[in-house]
């Protein structure tokens, strides 16, 4: 599908913007997000697609 042999901005590795999980130890845990099974699955738990409810920087 794609040729990823080129460099990105002179660097070989591109890091996608993602939430700092370590920092979320401190700024997370409010518990207001959706329960895992309360959406379209009901038969196979996953948490990765549950958006955070908290305003983040």
């Amino acid at each position, binding site marked *: *599908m*794609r*040729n*990823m*042999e*080129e460099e*990105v901005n002179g*660097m*070989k*590795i*591109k*890091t*996608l*913007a*993602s*939430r*700092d*999980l*370590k920092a*979320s*130890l401190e*700024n*997370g*845990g409010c*518990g*207001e*997000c*959706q*329960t*895992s*099974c*309360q*959406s*379209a*699955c*009901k*038969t*196979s*738990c*996953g*948490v*990765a*697609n*549950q*958006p*955070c*409810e*908290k305003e*983040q920087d």
Partner: protein
Amino acid sequence: MIHAYSLGGYHIALDVYSGSVHVMDGLSLRAVRLFERLDRRQTMECLRKEYPGHPDSEPEALKSLLDELDALKDAGLLYSPDDYSRCANRLREKDSPVKALCLHVAHACNLACSYCFAGQGNYHGSSALMSLETGRKALDFLVAHSGGRRNLEVDFFGGEPLLNWDVVKGLVHYGRELEKQHGKAFRFTLTTNGVLLNEEVIDFCNREMHNVVLSLDGRPEVHDRFRVDRQGRGSYGQVVPAFRRLAEARGGKGYYVRGTYTRNNLDFLRDVLHMAELGFTQLSMEPVVAPSDSPDALKEEDLPQLFEQYEQLAFEMLKRKREGRGFDFYHYNIDLRHGPCVHKRLAGCGSGTEYLSVTPNGDLYPCHQFVGEEAFRMGDLGSGVTNRALREAFRSNVLASRPECENCWAKLYCAGGCAANASHAAGSIRGVYRLGCELFKKRIECAIMLQAALEEEAPSGA
């Protein structure tokens, strides 16, 4: 812990404990793998041997590459250690408020799908409808046990909840009163087979339901294989027009057209694409949950074909997105920037603690998949959770309590997986459902690849 893989021309390294995702060329990915266990000199030697004559395996280029890896490590974005043990242990001891109920308003169904985990709707018991009084008690119970949680979730489930439509409406109205009295916000959802959808139901759902889950298995012949009425007649022709009317009138609110695939349609991609051809844009397709001796149950030997289907689905989604006719697939909805915090990822699915199922007569179970199994009855709305041993078993069933998950790269994406599937497959809620794990991991690989592709194509600064 690193998970490194290549898919669709993307070479991706996932740093498990920081959650960072790195995209690179093939040689760099190999370097990321080697540098996790070898020192600088050994890594360079290996790469020079494996990539002879490659311009990027020249000493200067390799030095520059390993400097980059060191910089990522120093920034906490690569080879991050597991710093979560204290939090994980604390979660094991923590008492969660209840914030979500699966309300079984009808243990009855107007379809008779043989693959139904709920035994055609009555959960292997007698047919029953929840009374308005029991439903109100359930909402009172939820508010009373929700502590400081503001967002409360209630899913109208069954069986077929539209068989008890007046009670559903009554409970939504009651919930709106409770919101004002207690400063809570109810998010109602409804899961329906669509047989009884009419304009009044559609209008009410589109006003009041945060999400609606519409059961459709895909192509007509696939849907009608299982989703038949008591006379054996398929329901596709009846439900699809109603689902389309609901989706069109939804006005941007969430819905999912959700299917189940079985061993009979291992080519389930065609069913997902059929849903898209019908004009639906929020799609979900779940592997069947069935006893291993069922002819419909998925088997280990099916995995290569299923993996290929998930990969092709991701490629097709990317292609359609580029063509301006994209659709969402529930399991590929990963928001790397605003996804769940690590507490959520360590805590497990929440069944039996923050999430409970309520039967028509007010009995409490850890989740909908345990309903009808007497050993998993936790109590009832009158007395609350009285089976303390069971509550304790679920409360402590956090990710860290599942030894088989310890070395899995996907553990912070599934939080240990489904307790019911584990119980049914391995005999313990702390076990794992291996086939489900393999499918889950493939879906996460595809979802992250999609993110990498979309981010690359997004206008800069987006």
